């Protein structure tokens, strides 16, 4: 017997996906540093894209990744296409691995996210450096990368809790 998840598109979940992506962009770009505290904003858009592409891949087609990347570039004042390219490359590679045999255990998923970061950061650095005409500083990117790697479990727990409390994720 097919469940209603398979027969009817989960519109509520789609809306939640869109809202979470918009919020991740807004929190990433908004001035959230309190006074002169450290600037430790993780790459929220990449984290959100990765989680959704792991949980609900059909909600995150390449065009969505591209649009989020472009919006990320615009809102941060960067060169258009840099983060779009980095997100596309890293998440496409992650997906090609997914086809080999997906795993839903948290440990491997976290490791896979680290791989995505390890691809996205050099691609963004390379594309950004080419665009501005000289090597861009690596430190801010590394700080963002480390912050993302460490904060990924927190964001992932939100999704896992949601799945546990409602049975099938988002349905």
């Amino acid at each position: 017997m097919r469940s209603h998840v398979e027969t009817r598109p989960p519109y509520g979940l789609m809306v939640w996906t869109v809202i979470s992506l918009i919020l991740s962009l807004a929190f990433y770009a908004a001035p959230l540093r309190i006074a002169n505290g450290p600037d430790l904003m993780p790459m929220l858009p990449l984290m959100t894209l990765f989680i959704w592409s792991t949980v609900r891949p059909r909600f995150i087609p390449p065009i969505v990744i591209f649009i989020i990347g472009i919006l990320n570039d615009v809102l941060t004042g960067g060169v258009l296409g840099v983060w779009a390219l980095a997100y596309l490359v890293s998440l496409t590679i992650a997906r090609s691995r997914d086809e080999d045999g997906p795993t839903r255990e948290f440990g491997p998923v976290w490791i896979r996210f680290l791989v995505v970061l390890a691809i996205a950061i050099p691609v963004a650095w390379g594309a950004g450096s080419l665009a501005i005409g000289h090597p861009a500083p690596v430190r801010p990117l590394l700080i963002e990368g480390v912050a993302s790697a460490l904060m990924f479990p927190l964001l992932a727990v939100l999704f896992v809790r949601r799945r546990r409390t409602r049975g099938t994720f988002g349905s």
Partner: protein
Amino acid sequence: MSIGGSSRRRDESGVRFSRTFTVALFLISIVLVAFDRPQARSPALASLRAGITDLAAPVLDLVAAPVRGLSNIGPYWRNQAHLAEENADLRQRLNETRYWRDLALQLRDQREVYEQALRVESPATQNRIGAWTLGDPDGPFVQSRLIGAGTRQGVDSGDPVLNVYGLIGRVVETGNVSSRVLLLTDLNSRIPVMADRSNARAVLVGDNSDYPRLDFLTRNAGLEDGDRIVTSGDDGIMPRGLPVGQAQRDRQGRWRVRLYSDQAPVDFVWVFPFEPVRPPEPESLSDDQTPPVDTAANAADADSDAEPAPAGTAETSAGGEP
């Protein structure tokens, strides 16, 4: 702990997206990177960016508002303990400020008299425009701020932007209700400056560090540690005399500037709309209006009949014979 569920596996393990389309998106991204370089940004892409930031501005403002409130809580409670002390200090400062205010008004009156006598017009600055910052990502590729004021409020490209302590940068992109400010520390920032004490000219060059460099410093500049650096206005885009920072040598002996604006987070800023100095329009001379031979008499006539000099010639006129 696991992410996703068994039903998801049944539903979506077979999701495939068109590889051709994905490759096309790769190529579009690469083309965008090539065409949106800061050195050669196309106007169409610039207006697209401005349009998107206009749309995003209210959302960013909404997200940032609670943090603004939070960041004010600490200083508020700290200040409660020192209110009496602070009050006395402020009264003292107010008394001192009265003296400077009187002096400033006196000097303004004097300047107006001199300008009238010399027939010069200073480049006028209009009223400043206040705005909150809506976005402050310190990314590796660009150091900029998104502010909540645009062309509708009178902000224009090139306008200088200051916080309470000094210059933070200039407007590089304007939307209807938002603008992007390129910080002085950004790699693409170039601002002509001068030392207040010695008038030594230089160009303030951002290099993504907290202390921008002073390049093209004139020979025998006579710069000293702690000299106050202000905008020189030599580019005709920024007004002269905006406070920038203090000169200091780095370990390699190069001159850098400790920015005044670093004393506070860049949260609320002022944009100073500035009418840049326009070059004089070339005179169209017909055959019967051949310019007269340069004689002392003609020169004197020209002097007495001349219209007030454009603002760009103010210094020259002021330095000449009254």
